[in-house]
């Protein structure tokens, strides 16, 4: 009787540990570390912008993922504008002189310092996660850029 009770208690105990552990794991599951994630595509700014302007549905199918963990991209282009967003993050726009749209790359509080040395006209490669594509918005009458976030400079 005592032995049986012990076994039952041990089984219940293990069950609680596994259940609790799984719950805590899911609850505290960290965000994906984009910079530590393997790069899915290496592209020039013009390539990805053109893909979107040609067929946005196909490009979304290729680059966006369900659950928001979309493709990790290294994009190479010319720095055309550097600004700060409301979250004190550096935003580096890579865009060719004669292009309608570019790739807007938002850095993070950890990587901001790497964007400080950049100047307009520099040719750089930036790694980040794509959030949305480029396109012409008829209502706004302007081109929207490809948006990448969690960005950092790729050292050559």
């Amino acid at each position, binding site marked *: 009787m005592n032995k049986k009770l012990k076994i039952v208690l041990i089984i219940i105990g293990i069950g609680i540990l596994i259940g609790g552990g799984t719950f805590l794991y*899911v*609850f*505290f*599951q*960290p*965000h*994906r570390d984009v910079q530590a994630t393997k790069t899915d595509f290496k592209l020039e700014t013009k390539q990805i912008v053109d893909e979107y302007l040609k067929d946005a549905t196909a490009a*979304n*199918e290729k680059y*966006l*993922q*369900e*659950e*928001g*963990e*979309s493709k990790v991209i290294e994009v190479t282009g010319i720095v055309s504008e550097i*600004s700060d*967003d*409301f*979250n004190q*993050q550096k935003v580096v726009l890579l865009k060719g002189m004669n292009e309608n749209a570019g790739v*807007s790359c*938002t850095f993070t509080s950890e990587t901001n310092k790497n964007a400080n040395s950049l100047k307009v006209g520099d040719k750089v490669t930036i790694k980040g996660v794509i*959030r*949305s*594509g480029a396109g012409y*918005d008829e*209502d*706004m*009458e*302007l081109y*929207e850029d490809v*948006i990448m*976030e969690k960005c950092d400079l790729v050292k050559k």
Partner: protein
Amino acid sequence: MKKIVLSLAVVTLIVTSAFSPIGKLVSKTGHVNFFSHTAIEDITANNYKVVSTLETSTGDIIYSVPMQSFEFAKAKMQQHFNSAKFLDTKQFPKAKFKGTITNLSDIDFGTDGTYTANVTGDLSIHGVSNTVTENATITVSGGQVTVDVVMDITLADYKIAFKKGKPSTNIAKTVKATIKTVYK
């Protein structure tokens, strides 16, 4: 004397047109906050990638929000938000509001001050469009225009629903979106 007055007038005109925000204004610096309150928990997410245009001559105001740019504290919540069961952001990567200020004559974009704008238009989220009317606060300060607006969004109106499980009890039926955009 006439010449001086005339050239002064021209200079004034050039200076005012350079500094007063008239015509189509564009904002790429903004913030959208999503807030859901239930007795069980409060859920919030932030997005700094909203793009907006404001045409001061017609009152047309448009917002475009890339949905995958909403950041949640917990990774699991962010995945739920983006998933096919909720906002399906792979299928519908952007939310959009296309509206008009209906009391445009009450707003003087050329004079510093705070104005209340009545905005009405179509909000499309998750591929579903609804007409919404909200009051926005327009602040003109030193030639810079800022628009603040709060939209109450009833999720069921946009066919966004968790039928069962934790999300169905922990997410409010109506959520609050607070949008701030600064134009130049």
